[in-house]
């Protein structure tokens, strides 16, 4: 702040000049738009801390703020700032679609162009939430059609999306540009047809891991010849074959294409053709990476990646064999994200590949690479920040393969910058996790899944309490934690005592008593999401969080020991929470609450709840 402001000489007309002397600073502001409604014309020369900015200037400044957390803070300063913020906001993020209603959103934010909405509780990804639970996007779209007719972007996660909704979206929003659907369900490729056909300015179509009814690949042929604006196209998770001819033409005419992720049906030959049209790609998802015979000379094949100078992300690589994998080597040095979680590579194949990938920051793998493969990760990727290791045979309990604690330790030794880990394994020890924590103190996300529920340290036979204890004690920046293995209340005591930045906690088959949950609810000030399944936490635990839940986004408890009466008590005490119980299919015991979902809301109880969801 300039303590000696000069009046701007270039301004012809000055409507209001306000000078405020405060103990901190003096400010001079001019309103340069004579037609703009003034916020306040009062000339205040007092030592009040409040400063008077004309609306427009404030809005201009605030429009540069992107983070929705910052914007929330801004809106709390005073009424002027609240107003300026709401007028300048272009993107709204709704973490729980039932925490607010579309009408409230539309009333508060008049100028939204981009919306992100998350729907169902995360455990719905694992079939713990019955079908038709809700989170339908349609009510939102019908309000948006009136409030935001110029809506450009819609990003949905775990929402129920019907073909009708997609058609509505495609036809009622003339400026619609970007659609991203992750883990949604309820639609088919017919809905995609509508999007392809009607959205003349489409820049992004990102379809990831949804419960989609795949009726064929014709949707891709629905993109009109005039569409040249596409920048992101991701249909990797769709199974049907698309017309390669249509795809090739589309890719050729969309010169701004940055992200292309094709599905498994696209062969290596076809991929080569595609890449020749879009060497500017930044992110590529290949199709099947194996082929009986390739048509062209092998050298041309090898060159297809060396021309992609901007490529930083590579995924797909289905069925990759050591025969063809080397064609990606020319691009490896620039890669920052490599997703091999659908390529059943072995340790030697991975080691050969990684020796070329010096710049990797993020790596996703299948556990077929084994501990030896992870050793290669540790030695080849010193800048690694994120590692996810998925199980190739998660449900085959008789397999004792995959990765163990030693692979994890190897990675931690070689990759001290690790921040995000998701690790599926069948055995772990407390000592190993302690070593890992020591090697990588910067963890922000630590998700360890020991696949056999309640499994102890396989060497000492003790609970895995000390493992997670060492993580929370050492990794002070921890935001997200998923725990597994045999765990007593001691784990939760550690979490409550040490994990002060924890925002998300996932618990399954753990704990000994109500104390466990109480420790966490009392100890973690920043806790936002708590999801619990199959733990011995009962009514006392649930009610111990009475004053906490309003500061959190949501709580999920299933297969615990909570009674309906306790849920009713909670609902009665806290009217600003929705306390919902999902009834068991066979409805055996009506006094126990089989699945409880508690979340704060300003929208009141759900009006669209199906019969098996009871709002207390």
């Amino acid at each position, binding site marked *: 702040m300039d303590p000696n402001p000069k009046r701007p000489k270039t301004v012809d007309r000055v409507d209001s000049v306000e000078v405020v002397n405060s103990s901190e600073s003096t400010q001079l502001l001019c309103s340069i738009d004579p037609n703009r409604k003034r916020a306040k014309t009062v000339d205040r020369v007092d030592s009040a801390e409040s400063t008077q900015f004309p609306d427009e200037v404030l809005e201009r400044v605030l429009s540069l703020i992107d983070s929705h957390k910052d914007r929330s803070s801004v809106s709390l300063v005073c009424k002027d700032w609240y107003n300026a913020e709401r007028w300048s906001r272009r993107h709204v993020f709704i973490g729980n679609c039932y925490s607010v209603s579309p009408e409230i959103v539309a009333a508060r934010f008049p100028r939204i162009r981009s919306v992100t909405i998350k729907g169902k509780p995360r455990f719905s990804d694992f079939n713990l939430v019955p079908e038709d639970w809700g989170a339908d996007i349609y009510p939102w779209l019908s309000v948006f059609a009136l409030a935001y007719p110029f809506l450009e972007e819609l990003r949905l996660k775990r929402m129920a999306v019907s073909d009708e909704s997609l058609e509505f979206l495609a036809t009622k929003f003339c400026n619609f540009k970007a659609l991203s659907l992750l883990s949604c369900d309820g639609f088919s490729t017919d809905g995609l047809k509508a999007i392809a056909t009607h959205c003349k300015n489409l820049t992004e179509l990102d379809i990831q891991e949804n419960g989609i009814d795949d009726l064929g690949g014709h949707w891709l042929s629905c993109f009109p010849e005039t569409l040249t604006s596409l920048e992101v196209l991701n249909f990797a998770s769709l199974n049907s074959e698309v017309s390669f001819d249509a795809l090739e033409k589309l890719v050729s005419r969309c010169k701004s294409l940055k992200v292309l992720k094709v599905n498994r049906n696209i062969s290596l030959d076809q991929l080569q053709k595609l890449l020749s049209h879009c060497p500017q790609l930044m992110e590529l998802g290949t199709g099947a990476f194996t082929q009986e015979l390739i048509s062209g000379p092998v050298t041309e094949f090898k060159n297809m990646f060396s021309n992609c100078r901007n490529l930083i992300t590579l995924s797909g690589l289905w069925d990759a064999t050591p025969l063809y994998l080397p064609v990606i080597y020319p691009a490896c040095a620039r890669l920052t994200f490599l997703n091999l979680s659908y390529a059943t590579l072995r340790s030697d194949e991975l080691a050969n590949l990684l020796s070329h990938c010096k710049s990797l920051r993020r790596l996703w793998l299948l556990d077929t690479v084994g501990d030896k493969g992870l050793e290669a990760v540790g030695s080849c990727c010193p800048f690694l920040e994120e590692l996810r290791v998925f199980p190739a045979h998660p449900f085959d309990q008789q397999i004792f393969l995959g990765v163990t604690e030693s692979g994890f330790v190897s990675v931690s030794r070689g990759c001290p910058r690790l921040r995000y880990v998701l690790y599926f394994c069948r055995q772990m020890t407390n000592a190993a996790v302690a070593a890992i924590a020591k090697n990588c103190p910067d963890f922000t996300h630590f998700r360890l899944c020991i696949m056999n529920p309640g499994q102890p340290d396989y060497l000492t036979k003790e609970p895995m309490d000390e493992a997670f204890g060492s993580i929370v004690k050492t990794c002070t920046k921890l935001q997200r934690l998923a725990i597994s293995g045999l765990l007593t209340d001691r784990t939760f005591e550690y979490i409550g005592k040490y994990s002060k930045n924890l925002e998300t906690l996932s618990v399954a088959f753990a704990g000994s008593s109500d104390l466990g949950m109480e420790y966490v609810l009392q100890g973690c000030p920043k806790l936002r999401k708590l999801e619990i399944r199959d733990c*011995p936490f009962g009514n006392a635990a649930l009610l111990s969080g009475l004053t906490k839940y309003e500061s959190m986004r949501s709580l999920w408890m299933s297969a615990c020991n909570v009674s309906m009466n306790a849920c009713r008590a909670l609902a009665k005490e806290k009217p600003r929470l929705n306390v919902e119980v999902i009834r068991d299919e066979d409805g055996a015991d009506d006094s126990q609450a089989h699945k409880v979902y508690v979340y704060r809301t300003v929208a009141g109880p759900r009006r669209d709840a199906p019969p098996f969801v009871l709002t207390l």
Partner: protein
Amino acid sequence: MSVPLEHDYIGLSDASRSSDSSSNITSVTETQPNSVLNFKATELSLGLPGFSKNGGPTIMLGAKRGFADVNLDGSGKWALKGGSEAQLGGFEKSQTLTPDVKPAEDKKKGSGSAPPSAKAQVVGWPPIRSFRKNTMAANSSKNADVTEGNLASGGCLFVKVSMDGAPYLRKIDLKIYHNYTELSKALEKMFSCFTLGNGVKGREGLSESNLKDLLHGSECVLTYEDKDGDWMLVGDVPWEMFIDSCKRLRIMKGSEAIGLAPRSMEKCKNKI
């Protein structure tokens, strides 16, 4: 410090567990957790901690057969009888129960342990999204013939062995052999009941290239299917490379064998 909850993982016979949370906390003595946890750690069945009987999650019986079923299946029909399993060395016990169980891990259990009961699969565990689940399931059905051991470095490498004309196949663990000699000896013993006439005794100092000779008494050719799906002659490559790429074995006999193994042709000529 709270005592560890006694998690009962025997599985579905959990009905007696009380739903009252306080009674779930049992004091576990020093020795007890070890034996209980030992068992739990190695027990293959997946029951659930029985907190509330009714609040327990839905349990689906997993796709894998339980032990009770295996013995009735075709692939196991020879397993319990006679001395054929004795030829397989120290692994006969587990192999009689099911071909799919890794014997190395079974050894961890006490020898008196009963076969694990039918596997129960817990809904939504491990937490894998449907898309990945379905993709991996499709992958494994594609590789139905490939045993688990081929996918990652592990303790065992079971491959099917078929012999032309034999009424049933066998399965052997390639990892327990260290060279072609041992393999051929084992195969010979295993399939001697099917060989007509002269079973060639294993000679001393057999090298890889002599393996073909071993079975030539019955004009057999030992072949294997490699990772690319091609049928190759056993013995050409170093042992390590062989077990790395071998997916299944086949003993070709009779007219198919003639003309395939160069040595056998020579022998035929010599005999004439």
